[in-house]
């Protein structure tokens, strides 16, 4: 899609502000009524989903130019998709898609992405990861007691963050796989970034190159199934890749894999993990993980000015994310008591890290993680659990900054603990 193809949709925004809040019916309190960390932090309407759609429209119509402030508007959005869930409660509009297209247009115009993004994109191109770490050190987390099988058609795609920053997640995932007796291989130092940080900031051309090259590598090595412990990688491989590169590789997230292992009794959660936990739905495993279903059909005017799609066009509302698997796993860990926050599932509040915000707008990203932590604390849980190394990194920083007494764990870590540390 191009911005032009969104024109009618952008012109149809009602400026109603529903996209600043979780769907209105599920609001339980004033404190936790909002969905958009960006408008919460910056306050000008331009920083909401609807506001950004208006900015996109103004740009497309040639009313405005890409100023420094406008670029901040475009890029201080975590691309979390919350606005779109709330908007689609009523309208057929896609603010989050329009924001993405606006970023693509900003890159095409040579103004975007932001300098910090450009820098990490260079690093991705040079080192295969946005942290600029040595590719050879990618598998450095691997411990001697983990067994991999290079002939396996199942790949554990570790991702840059678990490889270099949250190694404990990589270790836990590998150990769970070993305990379940499931063969898997790694790409080791040949693993490349999934392309998420590049794609999300609108450098679609480079992102597609990465996607193609990754799929080529997977095909060459005979990969039929990919396991990922990162929501961002999951989202790319499962949801975005098929839109740009054809592949029929099965993609599953660790939470789904663990749920399956428990069901099939491949692993047993026997050790007590006595803690009250609350679970944070990562945006890219939740609402953004709902696949795009290709649709072909006709738009038919059934009543004057009222159109429907024949056959009915699937609406990507966010209901089809991975919500139950992590919760089902948590509920089966002996000793764990799961309490929910007010904003969950498709109306979960973003951790603040995504969409390139953690690198370009660190103050905002940290502030958003604090917002979410406050909600987590309000449940009286002692521990916040999620299933994404990137959310985890942002939360850990948030916990430190607010001197919170909360602990943070990835789902895989608690599972491993309940398995007695794995084999």
């Amino acid at each position, binding site marked *: 899609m191009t911005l032009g193809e969104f024109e009618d949709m952008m012109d149809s925004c009602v400026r109603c*502000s*529903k996209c600043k809040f979780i769907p*209105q*019916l599920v609001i339980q309190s004033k404190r936790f009524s909002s969905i958009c960390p960006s408008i919460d932090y910056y306050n*000008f309407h*331009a920083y909401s989903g609807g506001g950004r759609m208006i900015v996109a429209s103004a740009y497309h119509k040639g009313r405005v130019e890409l100023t420094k*402030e406008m670029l901040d*508007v475009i890029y201080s959005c975590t691309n979390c998709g919350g606005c779109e869930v709330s908007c689609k409660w009523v309208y057929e509009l896609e603010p989050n898609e329009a924001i993405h297209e606006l970023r693509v247009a900003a890159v095409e115009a040579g103004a975007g992405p932001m300098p910090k993004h450009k820098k990490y994109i260079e690093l991705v191109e040079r080192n295969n990861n946005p942290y600029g770490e040595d590719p050879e050190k990618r598998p450095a987390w691997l411990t001697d007691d983990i067994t991999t099988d290079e002939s396996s058609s199942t790949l554990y795609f570790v991702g840059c963050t678990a490889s270099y920053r949250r190694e404990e997640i990589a270790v836990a995932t590998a150990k769970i796989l070993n305990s379940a007796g499931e063969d898997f291989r790694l790409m080791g130092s040949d693993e490349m970034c999934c392309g998420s940080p590049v794609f999300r900031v609108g450098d679609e051309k480079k992102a597609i190159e990465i996607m193609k090259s990754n799929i080529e590598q997977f095909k060459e090595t005979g990969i039929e199934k990919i396991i990922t412990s990162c929501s961002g990688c999951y989202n790319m491989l499962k949801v975005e890749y098929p839109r740009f590169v054809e592949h029929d590789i099965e993609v599953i997230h660790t939470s789904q894999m663990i749920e399956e292992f428990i069901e099939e009794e491949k692993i047993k959660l026997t050790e007590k993990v006595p803690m009250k936990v609350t679970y944070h739905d990562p945006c890219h495993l939740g609402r953004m993980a709902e696949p795009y279903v290709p649709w072909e059909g006709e738009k038919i005017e059934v009543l004057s000015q*009222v159109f429907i799609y024949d056959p009915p066009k699937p609406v990507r509302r966010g209901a089809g994310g991975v919500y139950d698997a992590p919760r089902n796993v948590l509920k089966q860990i002996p000793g764990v008591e799961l309490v929910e926050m007010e904003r969950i599932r*498709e109306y979960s509040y973003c951790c603040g890290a995504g969409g390139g915000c953690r690198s370009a707008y660190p103050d905002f990203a940290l502030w958003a993680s604090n917002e979410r932590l406050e909600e987590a604390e309000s449940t009286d849980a002692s521990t916040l659990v999620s299933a994404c190394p990137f959310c985890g990194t942002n939360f850990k920083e948030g916990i430190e900054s607010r001197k919170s007494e909360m602990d943070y764990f990835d789902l895989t870590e608690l599972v491993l603990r309940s398995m007695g540390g794995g084999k």
Partner: protein
Amino acid sequence: MLEKKVYEAFTKIVGERHISQDLAVMDTYAFQWCNEIEGAQRGEEPQRFGVRPLAVVLPESTEQVQSIVKLCNEHDVTFKAFCTGMGPWAGVSDPRAIQIDLRRMNRIIEVDEKNMYAVIEPYVTNAELQSELFEFGLMHHAQGAGPQTAPLASHTSFVGPGFTSPYTGFSARNVLGVEWVLPEGEILRLGSFDHSGKWFTGDGPGISLRGIMRGWLGTYGGLGVFTKAAIRLFSWPAPKDWKWKTSGTIPDYDWDVPPYWQMYVLNFEEWEEYQKAMYELSDREVTMVATTSAPEGLAALFTNTKQDAIETIFAGLLAKTRNYIVMLVAAHTQREFDFRTKLVRLIMEKYGGNDLIAEGVTTPMPMHYGETVRNMLGGHAFRFSNCFQSTHGGMDTISMAVRLAQLNQPIKQKYIDKGVIGDDRGLGIWITSYESGHMAHMEAPTVYDPTDIESCLGYAAYQDDCNQLDLDNALGMPFFIVGDEVHNFYAKRAMNYPDWLRKIKGAFDPNGVSDPSHYVKGVEKKK
């Protein structure tokens, strides 16, 4: 652009983070739903972008608002404040205007359980306030614009009909007192606050200025800035330990319906019976909700997607639906519930009606009960085409509402036949009764396509015809009159009331800096 020194002076008040003059940011304030209709009515090319403010400021306190207003007077800058800013009346009309976005003033200051009022700041939304009132067993009146809009905006500046209007009235009726930054920057607190520290009444102890502050229609931001409002609260008919609880996943949520609640859709073959039943149902105070729309509207009320709404229409809903009233009996106790539901049945039988829910023609799910009391049903109308606008309608007696609906039908049909507005067979209306009495609100929501010039022009012409219809048939006062021209249009038949509005405007805003846009311009404007 504002002169550098003026911009810097505003910056000094709110801080750098809370002011902008970037054109892209400004455009998100210039863009408003229905600007295209107003443009078409003025003979301009229809578009959603209206006048761009020169700057937007985000104050956090009354003192900051006061300083901004004073500065505007000093430098001949027009200003317009808003809460959430939905609708063309929220935007500026003067090219030398700034927008005061009150988003950062968002506290619920007080809930007085005994005296049944709440004191709120501008950016508290209806859903937020409602969710904080349950623990007190209380509710407020929320305007039909939706749960995401601000009760302060409506109570101070609009008429404010809503879905619970039979029980809670309308916003204009429920404002008890305000803190008001006048157009020249003076602060005025209306009501009992300065006298007792309590806000239980909006009048006295001196003369009442409530009429000047908002009058019948409200001033749409044309007479200063309201920084606090005390609003009346009502008993919430559910046990205090009942909790607002939803489950499930979008779009089909579940909602815990309180114990003594029941919805009805009473259907009457003819308007005459409908009208009698509506009077009696209102008079007997049996229902919290009494809403009428087109049969097509009913299809949208109790479904969750456009596809479902359309399928319901084609499944035969229209053939079984005539003039109906969506009702919600919401009682505190079993005895009250039994009494009310019995009365509903008796009134229905007396006027030969039938209940479309009992007959399975329509089926509200539990979540639709929740959506009803959260004022979300109006939004469903957007599902058909992402856009509708309403005529200026009327606010008078129940029988006048019916008359308006009947007279409106052939006019609307004319534009439907031209293919420029949505086809609801001319029956698309919204009627709600008010305050368990003889009063009712009527407007004619109409689907049009904002991206199609013909449709915008068509809707604009339809609206003009409706205004003429009001005059020609003496259909009472519209609930919504925007701007000098429309006021002038009605003036002669209503004792030239706009002259008085202009005198008020001129006296309170001698420098003419409170952007009049949809209110009136003052007579003594010095500018």
